[in-house]
């Protein structure tokens, strides 16, 4: 199939439909409104259902109901709306329901702003709602990758019976890039014998639930969840690396920020600097081991984010004090420039090439 130039948010909708998603429950918030708009226009054409809920809270709980019936279902929002959805996300994780959640991040805290940010890294990777749970979090850096990750994301959600979050930002949602919708590889997915579709008098009732009043049972449930997350850590780490082994500085950035870092690296290379990049694509599970490839006498790892230092914690866990760690970030909707990143690298190297 040929390429089309598509806005990120619309590509989200197109990818979801391509992946077989037929149910969307959402609520308007900038800068992701093109997602519900696209779904309201396109889902009826393929026999799907779009519901504009009364709130983000209602929308995520509709997702809970639909997922419990075995549907491929999604919702999308932006930072303050995702905060509202945390109740439902925690229940969905607890009840082990597959679904896809898209967060096109904007500046915070509170109502914040509407320009791009990455300030929900903690919220996305540490759980976000109550309880000890994890989402599978994927952070695309371009629209093609976002489309591919969404299509795969629905399968991952089904495979692990776990919510998958696509963590983007206002920039990737609003920008346009060429995109191609490739045929999806068929994956062997577990049969959904746990869903509620009516007993038809043939089986015992199925129950979709996250309540375990007996602490022994709840502990067992949590141990099971952790085993599932461990399996994700073994199998689902995704990372893109560039010249990690012999660079004098390695930048770590994800999503759109990684693209900007890449432009900075091109500039620096022209000046003779050796700079690498580790771009985590899965934020949970995090590619900790990739950082072990960095040589011991590397002058520093520079984490660049559109926040005041959140993924930085994971980078420091990965480095474990082996290599100096530096940070450069802009926030509030300000986007780092390649030149500012390059300057920070020059500063770390003290002019040494």
């Amino acid at each position, binding site marked *: 199939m040929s390429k089309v130039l598509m806005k990120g948010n619309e590509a989200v909708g197109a990818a979801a439909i391509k992946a077989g998603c037929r149910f969307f429950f959402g609520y308007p918030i900038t800068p992701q409104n093109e997602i519900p708009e696209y779904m309201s226009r396109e889902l009826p054409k393929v026999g799907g259902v779009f519901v504009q809920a009364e709130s983000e809270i209602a929308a995520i709980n509709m997702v809970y109901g639909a997922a419990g019936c075995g549907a491929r279902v999604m919702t999308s929002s932006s930072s303050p709306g995702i905060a509202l959805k945390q109740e439902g996300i925690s229940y969905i994780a607890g009840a082990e329901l597959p679904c896809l959640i898209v967060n096109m991040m904007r500046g915070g805290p509170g109502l914040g702003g509407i320009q791009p940010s990455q300030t929900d890294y903690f919220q996305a990777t540490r759980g976000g709602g109550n309880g000890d749970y994890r989402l599978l979090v994927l952070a695309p850096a371009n629209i093609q990758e976002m489309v591919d990750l969404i299509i795969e994301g629905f399968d991952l959600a089904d495979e692990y019976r776990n919510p998958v979050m696509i963590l983007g930002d206002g*920039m990737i949602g609003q920008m*346009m*890039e*060429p995109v191609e919708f490739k045929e999806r590889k068929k994956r062997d997915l577990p049969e959904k014998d746990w869903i509620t579709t009516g007993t038809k008098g043939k089986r015992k009732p199925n129950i979709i639930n996250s309540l375990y009043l007996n602490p022994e049972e709840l502990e067992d449930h949590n141990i099971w969840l952790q085993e599932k997350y461990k399996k994700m850590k073994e199998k689902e780490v995704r990372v893109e690396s560039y010249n990690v082994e012999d660079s004098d500085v390695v930048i770590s950035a994800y999503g*759109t920020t990684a693209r*900007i870092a890449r*432009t900075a690296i091109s500039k620096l290379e022209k000046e003779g600097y050796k700079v690498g990049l580790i771009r985590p694509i899965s934020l949970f599970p995090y590619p900790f081991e990739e950082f072990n490839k960095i040589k011991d006498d590397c002058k520093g790892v520079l984490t660049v984010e559109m926040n005041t230092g959140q993924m930085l914690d994971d980078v420091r866990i990965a480095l474990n004090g082996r290599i100096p760690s530096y940070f450069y970030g802009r926030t509030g909707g300000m986007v780092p420039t390649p030149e500012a990143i390059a300057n920070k690298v020059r500063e770390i190297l003290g002019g040494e090439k």
Partner: protein
Amino acid sequence: MDERIIIAGFGGQGVMAMGQLLAYSGMIEDKWVSWLPSYGPEMRGGTANCNVIISTDPVGSPVVVEATTAIVLNKPSLDKFEESLVPGGKLFINSSLIDRKSIRDDIDVYYIPANEIANELGNSRVANMVMLGAYLEVVQTVDIESIERAFPKVFGESKIHLLPINKKAFERGARAIKKKG
């Protein structure tokens, strides 16, 4: 090639569509492209701008900070983006609506009376295409044929009847440059 373009004006001047047309044309020519709009409440009637990158290499940052080209359709846009051009960059000014000259002496500046030309053509709304025609005459980023192919993709098949007037606008924009050359 690594064209980093800022197109700016006020809402309704068609700056977003101009950018999309360029990006789509670049894609047709198998170049790496990105289009990034400004967004927010000020887009309704306020200033609007988009960043377009057309490159032979994958696009890194989609944000244009060191522009190779700026196309400005109103005065606030000139004031805002004149400084964004790299030395040797190209600035296209809609002289119908902007009464001042550029203060930069290290760039190439082109003045195009886009609204007057559009009015002469009988459709004030094609001023953006006059500017685009002028730009493509100077910087051959994409072929006019690609623009023509991209036109129905960007504006929809239902607007194909508007292609002739838009083509005329391109040609007049290009001629405005040639005359000066």
